[in-house]
């Protein structure tokens, strides 16, 4: 099985990641994967590019803890998270969350749980370049709401 978490500049291949995740595991009947991609607009403005900053060390630790939480909450077989950092363009893949399970409900739930968790707890920050200049992306209230569904606070402090 591959490492559960990767923080990397390079792109990833969805098929290869899913194949590695379920490799030889004949108890897997369901694979839910989510890929986040860069849109060319945000808050009504054109986005030319996106710079992803992160907190090395804490990022990996935080995502490992999220996967532990998902494994104990849901009846899943395995999970994999890849998050890209550095400079990205519209259409680029940013993030992958893939989860395998015996039955489909668990993989859907765990995958969405991990995405909600990651959006509100993993230390990444996006800075986008618009015609008006570069700006830090604001956190979305809807992400905190999504997180609260799981009975977890969105952020501390």
């Amino acid at each position, binding site marked *: 099985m591959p490492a559960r978490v990767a923080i990397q500049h390079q792109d990833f291949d969805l098929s290869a990641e899913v194949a590695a995740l379920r490799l030889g595991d004949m108890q897997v009947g369901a694979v839910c994967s989510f890929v*986040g991609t860069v849109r060319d607009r945000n808050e009504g403005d054109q986005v030319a590019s996106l710079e*992803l*900053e*992160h*907190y090395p*060390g*804490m990022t990996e*630790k*935080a995502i490992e803890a999220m996967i532990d939480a998902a494994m104990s909450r849901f009846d899943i077989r395995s999970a994999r998270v890849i*998050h890209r950092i550095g400079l990205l363009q519209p259409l680029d893949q*940013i*993030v992958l969350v893939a989860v395998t399970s015996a039955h489909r409900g668990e993989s859907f739930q765990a995958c969405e749980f991990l*995405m909600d968790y*990651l*959006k*509100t*707890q*993993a*230390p*990444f*920050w*996006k*800075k986008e370049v618009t015609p008006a200049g570069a700006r*830090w*992306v*604001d*956190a*979305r209230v809807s992400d905190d709401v999504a997180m609260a569904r799981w009975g977890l606070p969105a*952020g*501390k*402090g």
Partner: protein
Amino acid sequence: MKVNIKYFASIREALGQSSETCDTQAKTVAALRDELLALSPVHAQALSRHKPVRMALDQTMCDELATLHEGCEVAFFPPVTGG
């Protein structure tokens, strides 16, 4: 007590530095933040309690009640926007 402080994203940019080391008597993140707020007008602005600043102690999300220890790492950053 020596504490390693890290800043990220808009807070890092506002302060013009990504880290600093601090010799402090502070016992909690709250007390450390008070000291930092008093350091300079730029610190006062960037770490203001009127802004949504998030904190981590030793690379785990924390609140201001968290207790410092020798050589610990405290980070201040805006709400996260990854994914």
